[in-house]
């Protein structure tokens, strides 16, 4: 899901940076208000988990590959704005150091994986977990479902970005200048693989870690109670 350089035209790149820069500013302000010093190692853990889990490419035999992102797990533990920061850091290191995801596409990749994914996934988690106790089954089920829906939403957004490119930029003969496949191909392709396979990988990773933490470090799960998180 890391869009490389060359797949998105200048309009999409500029637009996604224009959306991301204020969002990064808001995320910093939110964390400056709410992040405790003792939570900083957890932020680093979350960012590191996201970085490493993305290296586990899961194959569809004879087909494509994909991976989990871990954004919803961080959102469950520290809230969606912290997840935005943690996953953005992982994506920036991946792009600059390893060429995984483009520099021009960094805004787009952060929008898809560090904003849409944690916010959508966290919403699903809150909906299912509600105000249930930290030991409740609703917590890990909600986290797993959040991971699934969050990753699929992120893949859909990526598919839309790919699919808009031939519309936005083509030569006189109608040949694409950047990503070549139209929306009718790009969106179903991104959706199908993530609905059928990678979403479940994300659900499993997110749900398992939350279930483990419920047993061994329940205070971490308690960090985002509705009462703490909902306030603006």
């Amino acid at each position, binding site marked *: 899901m*890391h*869009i*490389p*350089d*060359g*797949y998105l035209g200048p309009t999409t790149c500029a637009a996604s940076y224009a959306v991301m820069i204020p969002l990064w500013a808001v995320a910093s302000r939110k*964390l*400056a*208000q709410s*992040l*405790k*010093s003792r939570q*900083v*190692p957890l932020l*680093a*853990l*979350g*960012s*590191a988990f996201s970085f*490493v*889990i993305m*290296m*586990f*490419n*899961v*194959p*569809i*035999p*004879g087909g*494509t*590959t994909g991976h989990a992102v871990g954004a919803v797990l961080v959102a469950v533990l520290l809230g969606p704005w912290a997840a935005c*920061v*943690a996953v953005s*850091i*992982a994506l*920036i*290191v*991946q*792009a600059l*150091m*390893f*060429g*995984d995801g*483009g*520099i021009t596409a960094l805004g787009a990749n952060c929008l898809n994986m560090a904003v849409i994914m944690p916010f959508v996934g966290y919403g699903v988690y809150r909906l299912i977990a509600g105000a249930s106790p930290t030991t409740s089954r609703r917590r890990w089920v909600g986290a797993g479902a959040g991971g699934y829906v969050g990753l699929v939403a992120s893949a859909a957004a*990526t598919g839309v970005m790919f699919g808009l490119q031939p519309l936005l*930029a083509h*030569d006189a003969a109608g*040949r*694409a*200048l*950047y*990503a*070549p496949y139209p929306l009718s191909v*790009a969106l179903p392709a*991104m959706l199908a*693989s993530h609905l059928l396979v990678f979403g479940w990988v994300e659900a499993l990773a997110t749900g398992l870690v939350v279930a483990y*933490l419920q047993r*061994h470090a329940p205070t971490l799960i308690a960090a985002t109670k509705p009462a*703490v998180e909902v306030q603006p």
Partner: protein
Amino acid sequence: MKAHRKLWIGLLVLSVLSPLGLLLPAWLGAGSAWGEWSAEEIKGLIGYVPARMGRLSSLWHAPLPDYAGPGASPLARIAWYAASALVGLGLVVGLSLLLGRWLARNEQSTGVDN
């Protein structure tokens, strides 16, 4: 803090196991992720390389492109993949600790703790 230590160890174990993310797709004959094809792959798929794609794609040269270093042997590829995971882990942890500490700097002055 005992839980934290276990989680860090878990991450190190995951880093060492990360080459599975390289080997499994190769074993099962899976290709590139959708929309992350090389210029040659794109040419094979649609018959041409989109005109402006190359200009942007050569914009940045990453130090360890695709989590690989020098050496094309399978063993070198595996070793570089795991080494990349550890390097990346170090960078990500360093950056997020720095940023996190800076963001949490006002905690004392507000005096709010829950």
